[in-house]
C-alpha cells in the first residue's frame, strides 16, 4: 500500500469514528452531574454481591467474562514475546558482568525492594476491598523485582527470579481463571457466575468468587510482566548475536 493510499484510508476511518463518536457524546449525560445511570446500577449490584470495591465487582463478577478475554490477551502477548525473542541460532549466551553501583543506590534498592513487594501483595490481596486489584498489584510486584537490577546488577535479578517456575505459574494462573468459571457451571448456574458464599461485606474473604479470580489475575500479571521483561532484558544483557564478533 502506498503512503498516500494509507493516509487516505486513515482519514476516511478517522472521519467515520469522529462523526459517530461525536453523535454518541451528544446523548451522554452531562459532565460532572449527580446522575450516573450506569454507576448506580453497578453499585447496587456490588452491594448485593457484598463486594466493597465496585470496580473489582465489575471486573471479576459482573463482567468477569470480559476480563477473562483481557487476561487471555495478556497471556497471548507473553506467549508472542517469548516466541519472538527466544535465542536464535546465531546468538550466543554470554555471562553478564558484575557492575559497580553507588552505595546510595544500593541502599535505596535494599530499602525499597521489600516495601514495593509488600505494597504489591497488599494491593492484590485487598483488590476486592480497596482501589487496586490483581492487575495493578501484579504490575507493582513485577516492576518491584526489577529494583534489584537497578540497585545491584543483572546477576542479582537473575537469582531472584526462577524463569521456569515463572513460566509455569503464568500459564497455571491463566488456566485457573478459566477453571474458576466452571464452579458456576457445576452449581447449575452460568459460566463464571458468582455462586460461592458471599461472606461479610468489607471482610478479606467476601464477594464470593471475586478474591479468588483477583488472586489468579495477580499471579498471572506479575509473572507475565516479569517473563516479558526477562526476554527483553536478555536481548540487551545476555545474548551476543550475529556471527563471530560477539566479544564485549
Amino acid at each position, binding site marked *: 500500500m502506498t503512503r498516500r493510499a494509507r493516509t487516505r484510508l486513515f482519514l476516511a476511518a478517522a472521519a467515520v469514528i469522529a462523526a459517530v463518536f461525536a453523535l454518541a457524546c451528544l446523548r451522554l449525560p452531562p459532565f460532572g452531574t449527580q446522575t450516573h445511570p450506569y454507576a448506580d446500577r453497578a453499585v447496587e449490584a456490588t452491594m448485593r454481591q457484598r463486594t466493597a470495591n465496585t470496580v473489582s465487582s465489575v471486573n471479576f463478577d459482573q463482567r468477569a467474562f470480559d476480563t477473562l478475554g483481557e487476561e487471555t490477551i495478556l497471556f497471548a502477548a507473553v506467549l508472542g514475546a517469548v516466541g519472538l525473542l527466544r535465542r536464535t541460532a546465531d546468538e550466543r549466551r554470554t555471562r553478564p558482568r558484575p557492575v559497580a553501583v553507588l552505595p546510595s543506590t544500593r541502599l535505596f534498592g535494599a530499602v525499597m525492594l521489600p516495601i514495593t513487594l509488600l505494597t504489591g501483595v497488599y494491593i492484590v490481596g485487598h483488590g476486592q476491598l480497596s*482501589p*487496586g486489584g490483581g492487575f495493578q498489584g501484579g504490575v507493582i510486584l513485577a516492576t518491584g523485582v526489577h529494583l534489584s537490577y537497578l540497585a545491584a546488577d543483572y546477576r542479582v535479578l537473575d537469582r531472584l527470579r526462577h524463569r521456569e517456575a515463572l513460566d509455569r505459574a503464568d500459564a497455571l494462573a491463566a488456566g485457573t481463571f478459566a477453571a474458576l468459571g466452571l464452579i458456576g457451571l457445576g452449581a447449575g448456574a452460568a459460566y463464571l457466575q458468582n455462586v460461592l458464599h458471599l461472606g461479610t461485606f468489607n471482610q478479606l474473604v467476601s464477594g464470593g468468587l471475586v478474591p479468588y479470580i483477583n488472586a489468579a489475575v495477580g499471579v498471572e500479571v506479575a509473572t507475565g510482566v516479569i517473563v516479558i521483561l526477562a526476554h527483553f532484558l536478555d*536481548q540487551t544483557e545476555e545474548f551476543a548475536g*550475529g556471527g563471530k564478533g560477539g566479544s564485549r
Partner: protein
Amino acid sequence: MNELVILPVLLLLAAVATMAALARDPARQAVVLAVLGMVLALLFTLLQAPDVALSQLAVGTAVTPLLILLTLRAVRRDRRRKQAEDRRKS
C-alpha cells in the same frame, strides 16, 4: 470547584500528548510517554477513578517506556556490532 482543577490538567494532558506525538527521537519519546502516563494518572485520580489511575501509573509510566528503552538499547548494540564488523572486513 472540581472543574477548575480538571480543566488545567486536561490542557496539560493535550500539551504533553502533542509533545509525545511530535518527538522524533524514540528515547525522548519514551520519557515523554512516561510523563504523559503520570498526567493521565493525575487526571484519573481527579475524576475519582483510583483503580484506573493505578493501572495507568504502573503500565503507562513504568512498563511501556521501559520496554521501549530496552528495545532501543538492543537495536543500538546490534548496530554498533555490525559497524565494528564491517570495519574489520574492509
